[in-house]
């Protein structure tokens, strides 16, 4: 764009701004004692138009600059297609080196000097989101199915545990597989109607599904307790040894088992390790299943569904397994959530939760385990650290997402490791 075109463009934008600002800023109501009077503030309109004029000029200049750079890098890439992209390279290194470090850190965290009750509690929350991120990554990252209702499976898991515990006296460990199973069943239930949908349409239907589940939880008073939720959910015990200062008759408390002083932090640390274990299982499982036929079929389906069909891969079953397995981990996480909180209500399973989990996957980068940990940490800790920031959380989210979508739609640290490599002949 040349200078004249730029000024014209900015002037047009300023005009639009002026027209909009006239009714919005140009008139103010004033209290005249009797009926409302109106005063004019045309100077405000002028300022607004001027601000838009300048802003538009700068913005377009930046956009052009950015486009040019994109073009340059595209030209470079065309010359040298083998050149790996830098962020992917970083993502790869992060998964190889940073992830083990992070896991090591997570294991020793409760014993570090600064790890008090709050820190361990916060770390537990982070790990819940890490696990949910890894779980959703199966559906979104591997199978390429955009799911905006993931929180529904989390809710199913949580309510499964709460209800099983309340009515049948199930303990955490007995309820865990069942909660996963129920969630997986709901995954299939969601999967069926959306099999033919892709992209935006799929996202909208899954969003609706999430809301439907929440509304059912809200309205099915008799079973779910409605908005009041379910309280008094059994807190976890250490494999039958309760964390309690005075255990019920006939039971040995955890601190007596180890012969240590009772402290309420024991349970918190136990919960922390529990979710760490669950999250690690999710991660290992994902790494493993990627190398199995079904995992490869997910990725192939993400790349080209028609080609999959031509190779005899059943797209229906493949998609359903992705939904089911992703949902299963959501259910596990929900089960954990219920036992940790001791109280659940539909309020914990709003759309915002789905959005946050998806944001974690997208920010971190599809396929990058370490990226998801970083994103989960960032998105859960930021609002905790800066309380006043909580107000702007959604705004910042939105901005970050838009920037990511523009700059790196596949996610910050997205990269892809081959699931199998050709060994030279003879080697084994």
């Amino acid at each position, binding site marked *: 764009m040349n200078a004249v075109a730029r000024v014209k463009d900015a002037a047009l934008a300023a005009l639009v701004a002026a027209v909009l600002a006239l009714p919005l800023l140009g008139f103010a109501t004033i209290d005249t004692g009797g009926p409302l009077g109106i005063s004019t503030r045309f100077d405000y309109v002028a300022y607004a138009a001027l601000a838009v004029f300048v802003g538009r000029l700068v913005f377009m200049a930046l956009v052009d600059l950015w486009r040019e750079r994109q073009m340059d890098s595209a030209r470079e890439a065309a010359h040298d297609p*083998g050149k790996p992209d830098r962020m992917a390279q970083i993502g790869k290194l992060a998964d190889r080196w940073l992830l083990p470090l992070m896991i090591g850190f997570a294991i020793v965290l409760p014993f570090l000097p600064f790890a008090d009750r709050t820190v361990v509690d916060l770390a537990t929350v982070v790990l819940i989101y890490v696990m949910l991120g890894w779980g959703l990554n199966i559906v979104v990252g591997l199978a390429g199915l955009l799911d905006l209702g993931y929180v529904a499976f989390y809710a199913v898991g949580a309510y499964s545990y709460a209800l099983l515990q309340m009515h049948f006296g199930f303990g955490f460990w007995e309820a865990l597989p069942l909660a996963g199973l129920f969630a997986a069943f709901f995954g299939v239930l969601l999967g069926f109607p959306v099999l033919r949908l892709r992209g935006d349409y799929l996202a909208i239907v899954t969003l609706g599904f999430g809301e439907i589940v929440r509304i059912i939880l809200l309205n099915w008073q008799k079973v779910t307790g409605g908005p009041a939720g379910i309280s008094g959910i059994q807190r976890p015990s250490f494999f039958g040894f309760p964390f309690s200062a005075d255990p019920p008759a006939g039971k040995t408390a955890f601190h007596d088992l180890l012969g240590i002083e009772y402290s309420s932090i024991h349970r918190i640390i136990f919960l922390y390790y529990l979710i760490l274990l669950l999250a690690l299982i999710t991660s290992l499982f994902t790494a493993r299943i990627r190398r*199995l036929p*079904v995992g490869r*079929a997910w990725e192939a389906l993400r790349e080209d569904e*028609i*080609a999959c*069909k031509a190779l*005899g891969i059943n797209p229906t079953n493949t998609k359903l*397994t992705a939904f089911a397995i992703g949902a299963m981990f959501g259910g596990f996480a929900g089960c954990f959530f219920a036992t940790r909180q001791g109280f659940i209500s539909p309020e914990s399973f709003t759309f915002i939760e789905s959005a946050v989990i998806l944001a974690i996957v997208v920010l971190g980068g599809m396929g990058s385990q370490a990226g998801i940990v970083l994103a989960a940490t960032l998105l859960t800790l930021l609002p905790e650290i800066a309380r006043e920031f909580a107000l702007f959380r959604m705004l910042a989210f939105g901005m970050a997402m838009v920037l990511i979508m523009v700059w790196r739609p596949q996610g910050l640290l997205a990269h892809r490791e081959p699931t199998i490599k*050709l060994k030279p002949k003879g080697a084994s």
Partner: protein
Amino acid sequence: MNAPLLQVEHLTMRFGGLVAVDDVSFSAAPRQITAIIGPNGAGKTTVFNCIAGFYKPSVGRLALRRDSRQYLLERMQGHHIAHHARVARTFQNIRLFAKMTVLENLIVAQHNRLMLASGYTALGLFGWPAYRRAERDAVEKARYWLDRIDLTGVADMPAASLPYGGQRRLEIARAMCTDPVLLCLDEPAAGLNPRESHELNELLIFIRDSHDCGLLLIEHDMGVVMQISDHIVVLDYGRKISDGSPQKVRNDPAVIRAYLGDEEDGAGYKSGGAS
């Protein structure tokens, strides 16, 4: 002549008012290359889509014989046709799994066998020995085809990073990894240079002669068609206008008319490679 591998009878495909394929019958013999030719929009790809189960024919019967069993393709779903009837295909606009590596593309093609060996994932998760063996076999099969198509050196590169000719060959190898009895190729020579095109001819002849596989070939390049096909079917405006040996088709006045147009300057088709 032995019993046909694929018998197409009265195939008709309508899209609303448009009749893309109109009462076409032909057959393809095992271990032969059957070419389907015709001007743009003649309905060739539509015939393929009916055979491969991507479209449901409006009218017609498509019978495939494999191991003395008959499969009626018009009643089967696309992925069942590939899996049970063993019909494999490539696409006019290449459809590879772009971000997956060359090797992975070939492994995905062996999905059904590997899925069974992994006990539908349950056993594979725990590293079941039979599954590991099956995976090794799958890699060996992939290696065999990689050697054939000369892509062994780039096996671990993303498929999208291959040059065009390599992508075409990879798509054929991927189809062959499903162990088909009928391989349908939609314009495999499009966009290839003469040397690549020549190599492709050799690859197709190799597949025909050593893999007990019938080939169905859509091709615009008359050089390729006349050189390697055993049997040619000519379509024009959805109708079959000629059918027979290359010799016969070449001299068929109906074919010449279709390609050159009546009196009009239908420049160019005889010389081939117009797309």
